[in-house]
C-alpha cells in the first residue's frame, strides 16, 4: 500500500478515497471524528504549502497568517454583517489572494534565510493587526462564530457532516494537486527549485510561476481558515501565530517535501501524535521532539519519499531488475 501511495498516479487517490470512506467504521465517539476533521483541514493547507515549499523550493513561515485572515473574514462577515457563509469565505479568499499577490513579488525575489525572515515578518504583522484591531476582531480574546457553514440549504452541523465535507474537499484538492505537478506548469514549478536560471533560459517566467503558487497556497489556507472558523465556532489571533506557521511547515517536511501524499501523512502524524502522547503526561513534548528528530535522522527526505525509495530499492534487489 505504501508503494501505491508513493507513486502518484498508481491508484494512490483510490487508496485515499477508500481510507476516508472506511475510517468512520473505526470511530467510537465524536472525539475521533474531531481529530480526523482537523487532520483533513491541516492536510488541505499542507498540500498547498508543499506546492510552494517542497515543489517550488520557496519557504514560507507566514502561511498561518493567511489562514487566520480567512477565518476572520468569515467570522466578521457572517457574524456582524449577516453574509451567507460561502460568500464570506470566497470574499476572504479573494482578499487574501490579492494580499498574497501584492506581497509575493518583492518577497519572492529573496532566497533562503532572507525569504524565511520576510514571510515570518509578514505573518507576524498579520497577527499583530488581528490582536490590535479589537473593535473588529475582538482582540486577543478572539471571537465566536455563531453561523453554521452551509450551501444551498445543506448545512454542516454534526461531526459526521463535517467529516464528509472535509473528506470530499481533501480528495478533490489532492486530485487537482496531482494533476498540477504532472503538467507543464508542475514541471516549471520543480525547475524553479532545481535551477531557476535553467528554467528561465528555456522560456519559463519564473517570477510568475513563484507568484502563482504563492497566491494559490495562500488562498487554500484562507479557505481552510474560513471553514475551520465555522467548525470550531471560535477564532483567536493564535491562529496567525508564528508557531502555527511553523507547525504547518513541519507537517510538510516530516511527511515529505515535494510529495502530495507526504503532506497528508505529515498532517496526520502531527495532528494525531499530540493526542496519543497525552498518555506520557509531563513527557509529552519530550517524546514528541524525539519522534521528530528520529524521523528526520533516519528519513531525511521525509516519511513518504524515504519509504518510497526504500521500497524501490527492495524491489530492485531480489530479482536484480531495475524498477522503471
Amino acid at each position, binding site marked *: 500500500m505504501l508503494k501505491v501511495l508513493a507513486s502518484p498516479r498508481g491508484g494512490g487517490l483510490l487508496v485515499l478515497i477508500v481510507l476516508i470512506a472506511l475510517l468512520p467504521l473505526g470511530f467510537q465517539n465524536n472525539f475521533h471524528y474531531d481529530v480526523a476533521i482537523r487532520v483533513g483541514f491541516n492536510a488541505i493547507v499542507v498540500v498547498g504549502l508543499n506546492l510552494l515549499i517542497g515543489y517550488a523550493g520557496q519557504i514560507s513561515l507566514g502561511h498561518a497568517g493567511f489562514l487566520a485572515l480567512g477565518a476572520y473574514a468569515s467570522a466578521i462577515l457572517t457574524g456582524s454583517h449577516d453574509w451567507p457563509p460561502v460568500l464570506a469565505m470566497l470574499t476572504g479568499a479573494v482578499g487574501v489572494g490579492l494580499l498574497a499577490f501584492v506581497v509575493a513579488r518583492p518577497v519572492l525575489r529573496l532566497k533562503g534565510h532572507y525569504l524565511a525572515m520576510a514571510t515570518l515578518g509578514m505573518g507576524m504583522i498579520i497577527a499583530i493587526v488581528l490582536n490590535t484591531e479589537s473593535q473588529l476582531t475582538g482582540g486577543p480574546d478572539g471571537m465566536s462564530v455563531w453561523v453554521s457553514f452551509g450551501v444551498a440549504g445543506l448545512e454542516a452541523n454534526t461531526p459526521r457532516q463535517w467529516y464528509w465535507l472535509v473528506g470530499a474537499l481533501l480528495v478533490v484538492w489532492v486530485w*487537482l494537486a496531482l*494533476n*498540477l505537478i*504532472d*503538467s*507543464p*506548469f*508542475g*514541471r*516549471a514549478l*520543480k*525547475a524553479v*527549485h*532545481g*535551477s531557476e*536560471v*535553467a*528554467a*528561465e*533560459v*528555456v*522560456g*519559463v*517566467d*519564473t517570477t510568475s510561476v513563484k507568484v*502563482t503558487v504563492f497566491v*494559490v497556497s495562500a488562498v487554500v489556507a484562507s479557505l481552510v481558515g474560513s471553514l475551520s472558523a465555522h467548525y470550531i465556532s471560535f477564532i483567536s489571533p493564535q491562529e496567525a501565530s508564528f508557531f502555527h506557521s511553523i507547525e504547518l511547515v513541519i507537517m510538510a517536511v516530516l511527511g515529505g517535501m*515535494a510529495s502530495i501524499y507526504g503532506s497528508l501523512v505529515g498532517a496526520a502524524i502531527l495532528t494525531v501524535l499530540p493526542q496519543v502522547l497525552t498518555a506520557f503526561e509531563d513527557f509529552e513534548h519530550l517524546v514528541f521532539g524525539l519522534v521528530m528528530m528520529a524521523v528526520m535522522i533516519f528519513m531525511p527526505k521525509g516519511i513518504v519519499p524515504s519509504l518510497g525509495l526504500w521500497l524501490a530499492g527492495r524491489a530492485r534487489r531480489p530479482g536484480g531488475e531495475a524498477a*522503471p
Partner: protein
Amino acid sequence: MTLLKVDDLSKEFGGVHAIEDLSFVIEPGTIHAIIGPNGAGKTTLFNLITGVYTPSAGEVYLDDRPVTGKAPFELARAGMSRTFQNLQVCLNMSALDNVMLGRHMHLKPGFVSGLLRLPGVVRRDREARQMCAGLMDFVGLGNHIHAAADSLPYGALKRLEIARALAAEPRLLLLDEPAAGLNSAETREIDAVIQKVAERGVTVVLVEHDMKLVMGISDHVLVLDYGRKLAEGRPQDIRANPDVIAAYLGTAHAFA
C-alpha cells in the same frame, strides 16, 4: 538581416571589466566560435546576450531590434537558447523531464489547464515526451531516458543540457564549453551533434577551449582577451594571427 548584434557592450564587476566596449555581429546560419584565455569574459558575454546579466553599457540587438534588459525567458521566447559551463540541470527531476522543460513555451503551460488535466495538456505532453526522448537519443543519451538526472555522470549532463536547449527549438543556440571534461570520443560525438544542428538551420555560437573542435567546425571565430576583442575572422586567419598566438602562448590551450 543580422541575427544578433552586440554594440559597444560593457560589463563591470566592482572594478573588473569582464567585457569592455565589445561589438560584433552574428549572421544567421553560421557556426560562430568565441575563444579566449580563462577569464577573458566569454561566459559573461553569454550571460549578457541571454539576459542573465544586465550590461553596464551598450546594446544587444536580436533581428535588429534592441533586446537589452529583457528577461532571459523573454529572449528564450524570441528564439534564443543556451547551455551552461557550470552545469544547470534540475537534479530534482528525471533526465527526460529536464529535456521536457525545454519544451515549456511550446506547451501552453497554463495553471488552470494543468490543474484540471485538460485533454489538450495530456496530448501535447505525450507528443513532447516522444520528441524529447528522440532528442536524448540524438545527443547520445538514448539509454538514459528513464534515469533520474542526479544519477547521470558529468559528460551525460553536459549533453542533457544540449538536448534541453534543442527542445526549445531555438534559432540561436549558445553553447558554453560543451566539450569541457569530455574524453576525445565524446568530444567527437558532440562535434557531430553541433554540425547536425547547424545543418538544420540553427545558428550556433560556441565557446570552447578545444581548438581542434573550434577550428574544425566554425565558420567564424571571435577572440576575446581581458573582455576586449583581440581578433575576428575565418579560422585559418585566426590560427595565423600573431596577436592570438601571443595571447595563447604559455597557456595550456595550444593550437592543434
